[in-house]
């Protein structure tokens, strides 16, 4: 029976080509935009390499050192006590000002305080704030550099084109080794294959390439080259200072529910950590707040003071945007479908006369609408893939490389199905309720 409905749906689409073209354009354009949003979300917050464990991840991005100043305000008053006048004194403490410094961490601080978080299965400390320039064949090549420890490669599952990441001994022995992206390999060496073993100059040091990876393609980690943190000269100078630097801590739990436990661990460590000795003259409060990946991401996008609040807002904005993008075209499609099905009221009458009950009619029209939506969805998919290609090729979203993976296709399928169901159900329900005699009287066959 379904094959009959599908056959009929395709024939009905061919009946009024102009109407079908308008309808399909609306469906495909809407679905293409929705698929594009899915791709952005999937790339940025989905479980995609090199951050396949975002749901289990906790980030500690900043160290905050504070001192609160108080003013004491004394109040003098006279009162009568046993017939004699006495002076009554009281005082209040008012916050008058605050010393507040906020920055990323020095490596030593993270290593000292956060290298033993009980519920973290994996962790790494890295600095992604460095940009160096080099000149190759008289043109400037910009390196976005990450300094990291060897644990970086456990946590980030970069896709290696060749070679591998550096190990603990390479970091400790300050070996001049680097892992670069294919993009940088292409810019610097003019090739992406057989790059391992080549020498690359950065920050007046010659690094030997030991690995080549696909670009990360996410906003949170814009990187061209990863080298051992022991080559970070600035950080080396910061040892024994107040704890500020350019590093952040990233932790991964065994399972998603470990995120809360890791956050608790870090908060507990924070409560037992003292302000570094050299900073105690200026500060008496130390804070380093842990965030889930999604909170940190939302905080970076919306730039509100509170990351949890940012995540709430971001969810609201995304759901509203998706809802808005679905509801308006759905209403339009419902309207189009009602007039389209109305033209077929006589057919409904005939079908009912020959034994179709209400549910059968409902099912038929919903199937037809889903077929129509899936045809629109296929066109939308092609459009979305074209948009994604253009966005990636023109670097419209900076370092973000939008991804197309099976989850993207799965979510696109779900969106098509929901769109088809929602836009088809109401008109089909209305028509299935139509009285058979009234339907036959329409006589539009």
């Amino acid at each position, binding site marked *: 029976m379904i094959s009959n409905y599908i056959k009929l749906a395709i024939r009905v689409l061919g*009946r009024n080509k102009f109407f079908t073209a308008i309808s399909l354009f609306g469906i495909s354009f809407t679905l293409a935009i929705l698929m594009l949003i899915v791709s952005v979300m999937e790339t940025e917050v989905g479980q995609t390499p090199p951050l396949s464990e975002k749901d289990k991840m906790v980030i500690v991005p900043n160290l905050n050192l504070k001192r609160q100043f108080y003013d004491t305000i004394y109040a003098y008053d006279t009162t009568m006590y046993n017939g004699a006048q006495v002076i009554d004194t009281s005082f209040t403490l008012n916050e008058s000002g605050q010393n507040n410094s906020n920055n990323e961490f020095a490596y030593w601080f993270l290593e000292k305080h956060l290298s033993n978080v009980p519920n973290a299965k994996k962790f790494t400390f890295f600095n992604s704030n460095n940009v160096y320039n080099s000149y190759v064949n008289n043109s400037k090549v910009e390196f976005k550099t990450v300094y990291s420890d060897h644990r970086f490669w456990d946590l980030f599952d970069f896709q290696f084109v060749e070679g591998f990441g550096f190990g603990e001994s390479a970091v400790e022995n300050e070996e001049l080794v680097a892992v670069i992206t294919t993009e940088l390999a292409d810019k610097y060496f003019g090739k992406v294959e057989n790059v391992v073993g080549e020498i690359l100059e950065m920050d007046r040091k010659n690094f030997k390439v030991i690995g080549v990876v696909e670009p990360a393609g996410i906003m949170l980690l814009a990187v061209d080259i990863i080298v051992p943190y022991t080559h970070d000269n600035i950080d080396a100078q910061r040892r024994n200072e107040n704890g500020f630097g350019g590093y952040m801590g990233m932790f991964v739990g065994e399972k998603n529910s470990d995120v809360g436990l890791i956050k608790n661990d870090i908060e507990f460590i924070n409560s037992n950590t003292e302000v570094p000795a050299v900073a105690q003259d200026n500060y008496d409060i130390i804070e380093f707040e842990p965030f889930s990946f999604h909170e940190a991401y939302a905080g970076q996008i919306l730039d509100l003071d509170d990351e949890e609040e940012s995540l709430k807002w971001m969810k609201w904005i995304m759901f509203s945007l998706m809802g808005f993008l679905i509801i308006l075209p759905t209403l339009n499609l419902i309207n189009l479908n009602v007039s389209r099905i109305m033209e077929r009221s*006589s*057919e409904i009458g005939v*079908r009912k006369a020959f*034994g179709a*009950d*209400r549910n*059968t009619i409902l099912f038929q029209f919903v199937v037809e609408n889903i077929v129509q939506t899936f045809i629109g969805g296929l066109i939308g998919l092609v459009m979305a893939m074209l948009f994604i290609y253009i966005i990636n090729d023109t670097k419209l979203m900076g370092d973000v490389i939008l991804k197309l993976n099976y989850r993207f296709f799965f979510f696109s399928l779900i969106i098509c199905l929901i769109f088809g169901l929602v836009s088809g159900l109401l008109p089909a329900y209305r028509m299935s309720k139509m009285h058979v005699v009234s339907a036959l009287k329409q*006589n539009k*066959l």
Partner: protein
Amino acid sequence: MIKLQNVNKVYRTKTIETTALSDINLNIDKGEFLSIMGPSGCGKSTLLNIIGLLDEPSGGEVNIGGNALPNYNTKAMAQFRNQQLGFIFQSFHLIPDLTVRDNVELPLLYRKVGGKDRKRMAEEALESVGLKNRVSHFPNQLSGGQKQRVAIARAIVGNPEIILADEPTGNLDSVMGNEVMDILLELNSKNDTTIVMVTHDENMAKKTHKLIRLYDGQQVA
């Protein structure tokens, strides 16, 4: 086979009440060919719709094949129509997006008959009306007479006990009308199919076993 007792049909709006049928009593035996005549708006089609379980009477009792109408719910009535009744309409009511064969298969589709059997039965029905060579055509590629023959094939494909025909020759010229009437008469005589036909044509009515006349919703003969 079909028994109507004191059947009424009243259409009510907020301001007007229109009596379409009043105290209709009818007894149609199995294998009988009955024609219903009367001027336009006298209630012929309403009566046919009530017999065909497409519409409910406002009063009275409808009994078809021993089953009283109030015992049926909507789903059961749909099933009864599918199993026991076949309809032929004046304006054919073929579905334009379906081929001739798909149109004829329609009642079998709702009986959940398998694809191969549907195809065979539809082709047999089309052969019986002389249209086997048109199975893959679409309705707009057929003449009026051919369309009505397809409609007859659709009505008989499931071997219903009763065929209800609402002015089946009304949109056809006399030659085609006679062809269609001959098919109906053959169906009635060969298969013992009970046929109730609404018509304006005295000549067609004369060929049937029994004729009733309606006037302003009342049975006058």
